[in-house]
């Protein structure tokens, strides 16, 4: 197990944002998190990254509590939002900086970035712009690529499909499918079609609780989810 969650809860001034009894994620799993706004998706990811402190419970990453030690940072890549990007750097400077954190020199980083040529669509590298002046979609692409830097064993992406144009969404899907099978991928999304396409396991959150945990039934998942969000109940 790469991630194990036990009795995890987060309350903001008395209001429950997240409350999960038990959740385990296996290595190599493609894990999709869906839910409406305020369901607790970002809260869960922030807890996994030790950005907020749980009200109760523990997040175990490879049997170490994330709040106790920093070892999980060695194998965890993440992109939550623009607060993961450094606005005053150019793209290359940013990638080189992140690469340096994982002991990669600029040529290594350039080699690594070659796999993103299609995804970047010629707009990311050598753009002559600081990241702060780039569009939301391009910022997202930078963040996603940077999350994969440093051979992570686990990546956490919050809403990777949002703000991307249709071609980029399709390219991102094939990019995720082509990731090494042993890599664990955690994705949250509002887009049911995309997330069911790339994930075998879908967890549905509502008001901070796990409502559904759908494993290994890709053909029926999308239907079931659509029915749920339309407010219908199917058995």
């Amino acid at each position: 197990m790469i991630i194990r969650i036990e009795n995890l809860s987060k309350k903001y001034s008395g209001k429950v944002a997240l409350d999960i009894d038990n959740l385990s994620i296996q290595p190599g799993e493609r894990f999709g998190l869906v839910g409406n706004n305020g369901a607790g998706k970002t809260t869960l990811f922030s807890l996994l990254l030790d950005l907020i402190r749980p009200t109760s419970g523990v997040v175990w990453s490879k049997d170490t509590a994330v709040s106790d030690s920093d070892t999980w940072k060695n194998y965890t890549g993440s992109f939550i939002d623009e607060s993961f990007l450094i606005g005053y750097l150019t793209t290359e400077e940013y990638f080189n900086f992140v690469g340096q954190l994982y002991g990669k020199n600029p040529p290594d980083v350039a080699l690594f970035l070659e796999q993103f040529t299609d995804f970047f669509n010629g707009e990311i590298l050598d753009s002559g712009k600081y990241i702060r002046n780039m569009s939301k979609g391009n910022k997202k692409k930078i963040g996603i690529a940077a999350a994969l830097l440093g051979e992570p064993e686990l990546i956490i992406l919050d809403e990777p499909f949002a703000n991307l144009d249709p071609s980029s969404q399709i390219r991102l899907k094939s990019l995720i499918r082509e990731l090494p099978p042993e890599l664990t991928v955690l994705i949250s999304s509002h887009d049911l079609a995309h997330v069911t396409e790339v994930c075998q396991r879908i967890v549905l959150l509502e008001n901070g609780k796990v409502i559904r945990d759908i494993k290994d039934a890709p053909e029926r998942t999308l239907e079931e989810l659509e029915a749920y969000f339309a407010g219908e109940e199917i058995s």
Partner: protein
Amino acid sequence: MIRSLLLQSWKAQVRSPFWERGLVVRILLGLLALYLLANFLFAGYFLDVILQDAVPDEHPITVLSGIFFFTWLAGLLFRFLMQSFPVIDIQPYLLLPIKRSGLFHYLLFRSVFNVFNLFPLVFILPFTFKVVATEYGAIAQTAWIVSVMCLALFNNFVGFYLKRQFNISPFAIIGAFVILGGVLYLDLQSWLPLSDGFSAAFMGILKQPALALIPIGLVALAYQLPLMALRTNAYLDSIESRQERVESTEGIAALRRLGLAGQFVQMELLQIVRNKRPKTMLMMALLILFYPFFSLEYLENGKSFSSVFLFTLMATTFPMATYGQFLIAWESSFFNMLMARRVPLMAYMKGKYYLFTLFNVAAFCVCLLYGLADIRMIPIVFVSFLVNMGITAYIILFLSTYNTRPVNAEKSAFMNWEGVGASQLLLVLPAFFLPVVMHLLLQWVLGWQWGLAVLGILGVVGIMLHQPIMQAIVRQLSRQKYLLIDAYKKDA
């Protein structure tokens, strides 16, 4: 229509996050504003006496009219530097069915309500009642006030225009100062008697109030300048697309040898160079380096070495303190990334310490020049350096973890209160005054040389204890981590 727009901007002011700060800061800011206002009123009331004293052979009104020339020129420069004309505010309205020209008039009209335009009025009003009205009557007084206000408004609109058309580069500012100095020099040498012309014009208005129509006409002309500029480029793309292509840097090879900490120094340097606020703050710190110059006379008459030390310490600490008050807050926009990716906190904090080292070495080298004026400055500068490296740097590093207000480094530094809170104002004080208080005490007991020596030794001890102190600071940062993440998220 302009009225409802003004109402909305009034609401924007009243509801701005600026007011959502602690009561203490609000009271302090309010007191500061009142104090300044009272100062101006007071100075204005006694202006005639002051002028009479300074130039006894001429009538105060003549003297003041001559001075207007200088305030007018300097005013233009200061507006160019400090006044902000928020053109971006009309962006949301550009889409609505409102006549464009109406929006432009509104923008210009709003720019009139500014402290810069209020100051001269407050300043001259008591004077006009006391002197002008009694000698020339109410009509002349009104004409005179109108003319003076026209100077301010002229500056307002020309400043608006200049600011809109030109990006401020440091060279332009230096150039403007040189030109201004040159004009002042020519005038003082009476080679180019502009101030006399001003004086004559204002005296003329007093005798013939109808002449006040001329400055009014000039303001109307000046109004056309920004109006034209707005008409030609008030489209969103022309607001945004004034960016030139930027190239990536390879970084500084010497810093790479410091490992990851060196990488962080490099990031800090880029942060300073590429963001307006830290850049201007540090440029102002350069000016402070001239401070000890004024203390040299204390040294000459051989008393109060503590004040010489205070001045020197101020000058050498200032770059570190001014940048350091937002040390972590500068990174508020990407602090999450620093905490979620593999960023060793020790390297991160050491990077900041090395940056301080750069600042301190630079300040040390510059201040060493004071040794040319008085050889006794050298030990003082040297001890200041040791104190900065061994005591103050650590204090600032430690206290920076308490500054929980996010800062946007891209904004201008002038009149910018973002990220400034009472706690942080109070916390910067020990960085400045702790060493000086210590020196005062030591001087009292041991005499100034020994006092200085003991402080220097304390600095050396601090430098030698680098590792354990840094570990304590890193522990402090990891304790504060969640608090900082939460605070930076809230307002960003």
